[in-house]
């Protein structure tokens, strides 16, 4: 059992690169204490330990995240808690070994324990550092993703506008009452009609002037006296049946209700 644990431990500690890092603040060490596991050479009552161990194992098997789980984890997913779990398990195993009655054995285990602690401290530092880096990189990635998303939206917007507009095109605000809305052809037609009506009006005005100045006699154009002519329609009653087709009379006839 002890051998098995040590083998698993060896697997975990190998990638840590023993001896490359100086042992830092001894969190792992504190962990040994905090878990109530005395370091080798310290006096402890074995019964107590065994009771605690039993409890741990019960809890561990029930919860499915017992300290031994840390050994089976992907090394790149290790958390600092896992390192503490590892140090707890190792500490417990070493304690069991050192509890054997052989005195020489106990001294060797104590020596080994310090090495294990320093490796665990290296592991702790590495895991801490890498987890922080991973967090920072994740945040960086998310913000970049958002940025790309926004830029993509803007890009597709402006691209869409350019496609629908092209050169020599303009945007018309459909809510603007003064927006351009009539075609050139419509304007031409309106102008033609205006010119036509203006020409007719000129002819009528000249004829009116003729009547006023008495150039045309009452005989020729039996219309009411000139001063009444501007009064719409009704004044032309007397011209009914006349054969003459002056513009003035046509206009007046047009206005007469039938």
């Amino acid at each position: 059992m002890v051998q098995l644990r040590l083998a698993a431990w060896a697997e975990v500690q190998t990638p840590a690169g023993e001896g490359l890092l100086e042992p830092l603040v001894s969190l792992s060490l504190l962990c040994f204490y905090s878990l109530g596991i005395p370091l080798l050479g310290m006096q402890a009552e074995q019964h107590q330990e065994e009771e605690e161990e039993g409890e741990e194992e019960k809890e561990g098997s029930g919860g499915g995240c017992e300290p031994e789980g840390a050994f089976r984890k992907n090394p790149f997913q290790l958390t600092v808690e896992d390192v503490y779990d590892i140090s707890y398990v190792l500490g417990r195993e070493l304690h069991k070994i050192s509890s054997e009655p052989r005195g020489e054995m106990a001294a060797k285990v104590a020596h080994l324990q310090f090495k294990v602690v320093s490796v665990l401290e290296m592991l702790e530092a590495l895991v801490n550092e890498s987890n922080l880096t991973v967090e920072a990189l994740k945040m960086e990635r998310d913000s970049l993703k958002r940025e790309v998303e926004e830029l993509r939206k803007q890009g597709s917007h402006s691209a869409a506008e350019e496609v629908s507009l092209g050169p020599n095109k303009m945007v018309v605000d459909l809510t603007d009452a003064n927006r351009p809305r009539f075609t050139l052809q419509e304007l031409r037609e309106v102008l033609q009609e205006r010119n036509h009506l203006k020409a007719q009006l000129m002819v009528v005005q000249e004829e009116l002037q003729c009547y006023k100045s008495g150039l045309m006699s009452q005989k020729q154009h039996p219309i009411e006296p000139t001063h009444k002519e501007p009064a719409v329609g009704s004044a032309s009653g007397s011209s009914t049946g006349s054969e003459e087709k002056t513009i003035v009379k046509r206009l007046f006839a047009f206005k007469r209700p039938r």
Partner: protein
Amino acid sequence: MKTTLLHVVPPVSRDRIISHFPKWYTPEACLQFKDHFHAQVRSACQRQNIGAVGLKISKVVVVGDLYVGKTSLINRFCKDVFDRDYKATIGVDFEIERFEIAGVPYSLQIWDTAGQEKFKCIASAYYRGAEIVITVFDLADIQTLDHTKQWLEDALRENEPGSSFIFLVGTKKDLVSTAACERTELDAIRFANEMQAEYWSVSAKTGENVKEFFSRVAALAFEKSMLMELEKSNGRMTQIGAGNLINIERSSLEASETNQQDNLSCC
């Protein structure tokens, strides 16, 4: 609505009666120096049954930059009014002004075109058949003088070469000092000579030279069309003036409208 009636026109007002050939504005840029009508024209006019139905109508086209005062110039002459407020002409407008020249009724159909670029393709449809082209600029804005060449070019493109009399008119004379006016006139006269145009400085606001200018336009156009008419009818002995004013007016208007149809593809 076709008018078939014999259109009786009232006599023209006194200030539209031209019996002596109106004088030029400056001898340095004028179309002709004579101070009397052509002998042939004079005798033809004497044979003419005076006071009969209208004879001839000539088409005048007024072009130039926006806000130089084309409409104001026409309104001063035709209606004797001046409106201080600027109102851009939409497309084209026209006035018909009747004269009695050497005892013969004669009319000018004056087409007032929009100076705004956006109306150019509408207005340009009315350039065709212009016997007189009046290019207008603002004496107080020398840039508008520079643009007259382009306006003239556009107007002449629609007409037979040499078929139109050309006038160059500087407006708003009241706005510039005599000295400034004289300076600008030097440039304008040079332009006029290059354009083979007659030069006039006028003010629609005060009315200075406006009547004189249009009388000159009418007399020159009248004489030219009389001579052409005489040339055509030589040998046929057709009496000049056997026409119907309304029909002439109408056909002339319709011609302009037909021109528009022809020119639809221009825009």
